Each structure stands twice: as structure tokens, then as C-alpha cells.
């Protein structure tokens, strides 16, 4: 099992949710209003006067074979409007209860 953390601009919330539904991914943990800044370009999302926008974050634990499709979809979403922004990071799940 893999954990995928998707960090995205709040404005992408609807699309991310749609994407998970289409990919039949049921479980996720949702973190609302998270801050962040990117290493490779993109505007910081800090919720401040200078950078007023905010991100949200979804962590979903999926089967290994679901990961490529998910990442591809996330890439598609990023291509749809790059300025809005979405990123995903994958790591292994060692154990669950």
C-alpha cells in the first residue's frame, strides 16, 4: 500500500474530489487550509497579505497498482491550469490497523 499526499490550491478542491471518485478511491484524510511553498516555481500559498491564497491537502492510502493512474490524473489536473497548482507525493505504508 502507498500513501499519496496531494497538495493543491483550494480552488482545485472540486476537481480533486471528482478525480478520486472517478478513480474509485474511497478513503482519504482531508486537511483544510494548509500553507506551503514550492521548490520549483509557483506562488507561495501562505494566507498572508502578500500571498493570500491557501492550499488544501488530501492524504489517501491506496493499493500499489492504483498509484500510477492517480498520479497521471494529478498530472492532468496540473496541465489543466498550471497557475492554480497541484502536487503529489507518494510513500510507502509500513503497517495499518
Amino acid at each position: 500500500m502507498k500513501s499519496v499526499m496531494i497538495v493543491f490550491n483550494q480552488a482545485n478542491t472540486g476537481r480533486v474530489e471528482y478525480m478520486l471518485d472517478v478513480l474509485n478511491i474511497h478513503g482519504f484524510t482531508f486537511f483544510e487550509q494548509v500553507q506551503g511553498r514550492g521548490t520549483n516555481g509557483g506562488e507561495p500559498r501562505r494566507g498572508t497579505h502578500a500571498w493570500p491564497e491557501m492550499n488544501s491537502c488530501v492524504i489517501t492510502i491506496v493499493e500499489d497498482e492504483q498509484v500510477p493512474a492517480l498520479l497521471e490524473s494529478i498530472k492532468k489536473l496540473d496541465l489543466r491550469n498550471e497557475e492554480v497548482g497541484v502536487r503529489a507525493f507518494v510513500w510507502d505504508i509500513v503497517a495499518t490497523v
Partner: protein
Amino acid sequence: MYEDSQQRMAIYKTAIQKPVTTALIFVAVIVVGIYSFMKLPIDMFPQMDPPYITVMTTYPGASASEMETNVTKYMENALTSVDHLKHITSQSKDNMSMVVLELEWGANMDEAVNDVRSYVDMTKSNLPDNCGTPMIFKLSTSAMPVAQYSITADETYAGLDKILNDEVIPQLNQVDGIGNISLSGAPDRYVYINIDQQKLDAYGLTIEQVGQVVQANNLNLSSGTIKMPTEQYQMQVRSEYIESSEIEDLMVTMTPAGQQVFIRDIATVKDTIKDLSLDEKTNGREAVRLIIAKQTGANTVKICHQVRDELAKIQKQLPSDVKIEKIYDLSETIQNSINSLEESVMYALLFVVLVVLFFLGKWRATLIIGITIPIALIVAFIYLGVADSSLNIISLCSLTIAIGMVVDDAIVVLENITRHVERGEDPHEAAIYATNEVWVSVIATTLVLVAVFVPLTMLNGMAGIMFHELGWIVTVVCCTSTLVAISLTPMLCSKLLRAKKVHVDENGNLIDDEAGKKTWYDKTVVRMLDVIDAYYERALGWCLNHKTITILAIFGIFGLSLLPVITKQIGTDFMQEQDNGRLSVTVKLQRGTRIEETLKTARALETRFMVLVPEIELINTSAGSNDDATIAALFSSTMNNKIQMTVRLPKKWQRDKTIWEIAEILRQEMARYPEIVEYQCTVASNGPGGGGGSTVNVEIYGYDFDKTSQLAEQTRRLCMALPGARDVNISREDDRPDIKITVDKEKASRLGLSSATISTYLRNRVAGMSCGYLKDDGSEHDIVVRLQEEDRNSISDILDLTIPTPSGKKVKLSEVASIGEYWAPPTIERKSRQRIVTVKVTPYNTSLGELAADIEANVLPQLDLPAGYSTHLAGNYEDQQETFSDMILLMALIILLVYITMASQFESLLMPFIIMLTIFPAFTGVILALWMTGRSLDMVGALGVVLLVGIVVKNGIVLVDYINLMRERGYELNKAITMSGRSRIRPILMTAFTTILGMVPMAVSSGEGAEMWQPLGIVVIGGLTVSTFLTLFLVPVLYGAMTKHGDRDKLEAIRKKFIFMDIKVKK
């Protein structure tokens, strides 16, 4: 949906997620607003009580100076402690004292009246015994006539009184809310029995005997009951006169020779109209003036309309020679003013929408703005309805002012949402998150406006009455617009804005459908704006490299613009006079001039006026005095030697000459008549300050009548020499010639006569003895027995009057009394408990402030005032001074509040200071605008200056806020400034243009009453235009000059703060 699970529900989020609820809430608001709008009465000004209370005390038999010392002084002393008292003035005349208290505008009049009553009660014991109870009354708006009609007739003139009282007035009384209806100059039917003194003497008769005979034969009397065997009858003597001719045949006495003496033998009986004392003419025809007042709080416009309709109906029932013509009708002026203001509001709305369309270039976005503005405005009507106010000049002016401001909030929100949508976001989500980013700053900018307008609601005095409502309305409208901007606007955006059209082609590539497509809008407007942006960026870059020059140049322009002020090119006024197409002319002839002589002058003037000014539609003239004390008499002080005219002209757009030019023509004509002592030609105004134009009053205080009269005359002569002075009048009436009869008490008592009986006899002979009524169709007409005119129109005739003694003998008046001609002292006027004479001066082709300065410089120094005498400039000039000092105080308060608001917004003391400096260019603009249009600064203009403080700082806020943002994002100072300038010039220009164009209809309107608010438009347009232009350079340059340059210092400071990074880790 996922969003429903969110806990933080901000207003915009709720609005976007519940579009139906949101839309319907606003529909409800609109419906309530329209309902309030329809229910709102229309009036000229907000409801206000004129703050005058009058205390009138009678003391029969006292002369003016006795009245002054015994009554007026006590009253004044007691009444000076009334709360909110501004001025106390008094008039002491024969038998009467009148103390007028002028309170602060806006004082609670009910409380004040109670206060006055208790003070009057306290002082009552000090008054002389025979004094009547002091009467207290307050002047109320309901007492002021709302319309006047002239009714002319030829053949039926004699019967006009009856027609009016029986048909016209009862029908008019049915109009809802109508107040007092009075007639001026209505002919009364009178039966006069004019007796020949010689014949009376020859038959040994007295007037009283004749009178008794007339009275004794005019009665209906019940004389018991007659009982017949079966029936019972009331018996009555019925001998009331049916025809006046019956009187002629009455027998008065029988001579010793047995000859019967009938009334026709010694007198002529005239069934006629009352002797002339008040003469009313309209365009030279016999006329009656119908004066209509309304009840307090009633709707003037509605009443006037109904009266007009009623009169049109009544006209049909009247004889054909009776004509009803309007002299004036307040509703017309009100209606016209309101209509032209409503037009201004509509145009402002249109202009604002066009500006938005021009800058945004998107019809959907423009539609959203177009929907939100009216909602904010409609809420103003709800406020007016709740506050029990009316649709008036002030409230509509406020709306016009507000229109340009309400769009700003919506634009900021809209712009941010559009930016998000263009990035490819879904409009629904973009609306939520984009609003979230700006809603705090939208509220913050509104706070600045609130800081400007709320203090207006706290103004005192007359300015307070005028601007209280304005303050509230703009505050309410601005707050509503903010509320709309963060609820309805995002909702509409989420529904109306379309996401950028994109599609995925067969190869799986995302294709932007709109890329490369250029509309005509992009080719023209956007290109032009791009050019402006680029040009501005370059200019700004230059300025940033030449900061000193730029700053010096801008302040140099400011300094230069002060020149017109320093050289006194810009005058000051209280309020602009309005061209309502109505002039009021007052002419005073030599004191004691016989009414018939006065009438001759009046007729001559009428004819000449008509020739000189062919535009005149109607002249209503009244001359003489009305001895019936009606309410109308309070408002017209005609006397035998006074002529009062109302001249009605066509509406100002229907003629070439202005009303002031026409007034000047009439003045020049009146100046040519040697018999005219004083004349006045004022433009009738509907201002809250009451009738008459604005004047500078020179008040001369001093005890001695001769000395003060002389000073007044000197002032008058000096003032007349001033080029801008017209209608110079002295308030003090000339001494009145009286005939005084002094009874020789010893002789009189020897004959059994007293002064009282002698005066009664005299009255019977000269004024006439009233002996009952001639009844005709339910109305009673006086029957008066008196001497024929030839026997009582000279001093020798009076001396020759026969007086009966109790013993039946007859003596001539000359035997018991002497007669003399006297000059009765004038009315004694006082102000602030000192005797006073006022010289009133009306400005012509100059402003009130300039005229006052002229008088101060050229007239007052030339008067040689003895010790104990002083002069003071008052009148509207004083009001103006007071208002201006109020305004300056207000402005200081507003500047402070705005500073505080901005300082908290930027969390900086420096930024608001930089922004505040943009007020100087605004002043430059104001001065230039006034100078170029040749206007003077009046109360309304001064308000404009105050408002400018709030309006111009908005530009600065936008700019500084963005520069701050850019700096926070890490741009170097100059780079940040030029970038911000380039990015913000469009929003700044857009908001400035919406406000400026919103004001244009107000500034150029030529409708009725437009004179009043024009200065506001001119001032704001001028100030904002210049300030916007200069702010674009001043603020960035000042920002550049006053803030620290590089980020190096900042980095250094941070490094010092986090010194832990410098610690060496030992391995």
C-alpha cells in the same frame, strides 16, 4: 457535496452555496425598497423645525419705549437662560412687545417651548398689572403657505367673498392634510350709513341715536305663544332687514314741528364693499389672494396637486369672469428639483455602468456591477422610510454622491474573481476563494468612507440639518454595498461568469479556444490602456529618479493654485440662490402716504415692469394693510405706504435672462421714482433659512435713536456706493405721524364727559359705529353708521365733531380737547438685549464673503462710532462664517479619523501620512475648478471639500497597498513601485472616473434648484481629477523617498534577530 462539511461558514460562502436564498433575500430588499420609495413623501428639504420661538405680550396703552422698559427687558432677561439659545431679538411697539428667540438649528423645540414657558411664568410677576398674558408660539413649517392663487373677477368682484367662502374654501378643505386657507384682499360686503354732520346737527341728532334706530329695527324676537282652542302657535316678530334699502326709510326722529326725519334725509345708505384698506391686484385686475398652508408633516406635493385639481373643478362652477391663476405653487419647484435630481441619479448610474464596461470590457461583469448598484441605492429608500424622512434634495444628492463610491467594493471583488476564473478555475470555487482573499480589505476601505460620513451626522446647526441625512444615507449605502459586494456579487459571479472556453483535442492536448482571438475591444480599448500603462510606467520611472524635482513641482503647483485664494478671486457664499422664477418686490413710500397714492405708484410700477420685462407672466400686488389678524398677515407686512409684489416669470429654461438680471432691471426702474424711499427686489427662495435672498447685515448697536438712525443712514449711503451692493435697507421704521387728541380733563368733567366716553364717540364718528348685521343667505354683513368722509378727513373736521354730553347738550370736540400732530417713536428693535438698527445689503454679481469684506474694509472704518456704540456683521454672512468654522472643525475630525483608520489598516504611521498628502492636490483641483467656473465656495461646496478627503485617499490606499504587497513579495523598492503603478493605474482610473462621471450630471444640471448642488459637483470633479492625476506620481515618489531602500537592512535585522544560526556547532 464536500463543501457542506466545512465548518467555517463565511457570509460569502453561504451566499454562493445558497444562491436561491441569497437572490430572494435581495429581491425582498428590493421589494421593500420600492415599497418605501412609493410611500415616501416628496419634499424640498428634510423635515426640520425652524428654531424660532416668539413671546408676544400686550400692554394696552403703553408706548413703544414704555413697552421696552416695562415688558421687553424683563422678558429678555428671563429668556436669555433658555438652553440652546443663539440670538434673542425683540420688537417693542405701541401696546405690544415681541421677543423672538432663535435657537440652534436642530434643538428640541418641544423642550424649548416648555423651557420658555417656565421662564415666562417666573417673570410674570414683574410685569405691569394691565399686561396681557404673554403668548408663546413657535413658528412651524405648517404655517408657511405652500401655494398661493390669485382669483380675479370683473362684474362679480363684489360677490367674490361669498363665492370664495361658500364654494371654494369648503371644497378645498376636503383635501387631505390641508391646513389653514386664508384670503387676502377679499372684498367684504358692508352696509355703510354715511351721515352728514351738518344735517345731524340741524336736527339735533347724534350718531348714536341713528345707530340705535338702525339696530332697533333689525331684529327677530320671540313674543310668546298664542293658544287657540285646539292649536298652539309660537309668535315671533320678524323685522330683520332683507334689503339694505329698507334702512333708508327708517324714521329717526320727529322735529318739534311734527316733521318726520328719515335716515334718507340725513344720510346716504351704501350697500357696498368694505372701504379700501388692503388692495390686491393681479396684472392690474381686482384680485383676491388665496393662501394655502398645509398641516405639519403633510405631503406638500400631494396637497398642491389636489388643490390644483380641485381648483380646476371649481373653476367650471364659477361665473365666467372669475379667473383662478397660480401665483406660486411650492410643489412645482419641489417636483422639478426632485425630477432633475432623479435624472441626475439615473445619468450617474448610466455613466458609472459605462465606465465599468469600458474598463472591464465584459458585459457579464458589467451586468453584475449594474445589478449591485441599484440594490445599495434602494436600501437608502428603506432608511428614509424608517427614519420618517422624505425624498428631498438632500437625500437624492446623497444618492448621486454615493453612486460613484458603491461600485468600488463590487469592482474589487469582481476583479479578483475574474482573475481566478481566467486562470482556469471553476467560477463557483473561484468566487469563494477569491472573495476570501479580499473581503477584509473591502471592509477596511469602507471603514475609511464611514470615517468620513459618520461625523457628518454629528454636525450641529443648520449645516447639521442639511448634512445629517447625507451622512447617514451615504454610510448606509456604502455599508450595504460592502455587504452586497461580499454576498451577492460573489454569488452572481459564480453563476454568471463563464470559465475560459477550453477543450481537449483528439491528441489529448488542452486547447484554449480564445487564444489568439482578438475582439474589437482588445484591439482598441485594451491597446489604448496598454499604451497608457506603458507611458505611465516610464514617467513614473523618471519621477523616481528625480524625486526632489517631482515633489517640488507638485507642491509648486499647489502653491501656485493658492494664488486665486490669496488674491481673493474666489468668494464665499452661504448658499447659492436659486432661480425659481419668482421675484418678490417690496416698495416703501414716504411714511403716512395715503393708500390711494400708494396704489397709483403700484399701478405705474406694474405697467412699467410689464413693458421692461415682457417675460413676466403675472404680477400680484398687494398694498395697504389688512386689519383682520389672519395667519397670512404674519407673512406680509403691508402698510399704507408699502407695496408688496410677487412677480412670476417663466421657468428658467424658457427665458434668456437670469432672474438676477431681471431683478436688476426692476431695481433700476424703481430707483427712478422720487416717491420711493426704499425698495427691495429679492429672489424668492425655498431654502430652510426662510424667504429672501442671502444678505450681509450691518448691525448697529446703541441706545440713542437719533445717533443710531444717523449711523444707519450713513452706513446705507456708504454701502450704496459699493459696486456689489443692492437693496440696501434700514430695518428701523421711520417715525410715524400720529394725530393725538388731548382731552382737557377739567372741561370734560364739567360737562360730564370722560376720556373714555370721548374716545368711544370719536371712534363711532370716524371709524364708524357697528349696528348689527344684514343677513343674506346665511352670511352676515356689517352695518356701520358713521360720518360721511368729507366730514372727517381734515384736522378741522375732527375738531368740529359733535359730542353729546350726558345732560343732552352737544359740544364740539374743540371745546373739550386739543389736537396735535406727533411723530410716534418707531418700533424699538433689540438684539442681545441692546437696541439695534440693521442695515441689510444684498450682493449682486459678487459673493457674500466678498461683499462682507468690502463692507468691513470700506464702510465700517468710515463710521465714527461714539463710545457705547458698536457694529457687527451678521445675517447670512454670520451663518456662513459659523458654518465654515464648523466645516473646518469637521474636516480636522475627519482627517484624524481617516488617518486612524488607515494607520490601523496598514499598521503603520507613515503610510497614511503619505496618502494624506494627496489632499493638497485635491485642494488645487478645488481652487482651479472654482476659479475656472467663476463660482464661489458655499456651504454645499465646502461639504464637497470635506467629502474629497475621503474620496481622494482611496486612490492612495489602492496604490500604497499594492506597493506594500509587491515589497512583501520581495521586489526591490523602485521595481515594486513601478510594477504597482502599472498594475494599479487601471483600477485607480476606473474608480476615479466612476466618481467623477457620477458627479457630472449634478455639476452640469440646469434643472430647477440645480444651483444649490452644482458647487458640490464642481468641487468634487475638480478636486478628484487633479488629485487623481497628481496622486499617481506623488504617492509613489513619496513612498520611494520615505521608505528604506534595499532589503539589505531588513535581512541584516532578521539575521540579528535569529542569531542562533551563527552559533558554531562543535563536532
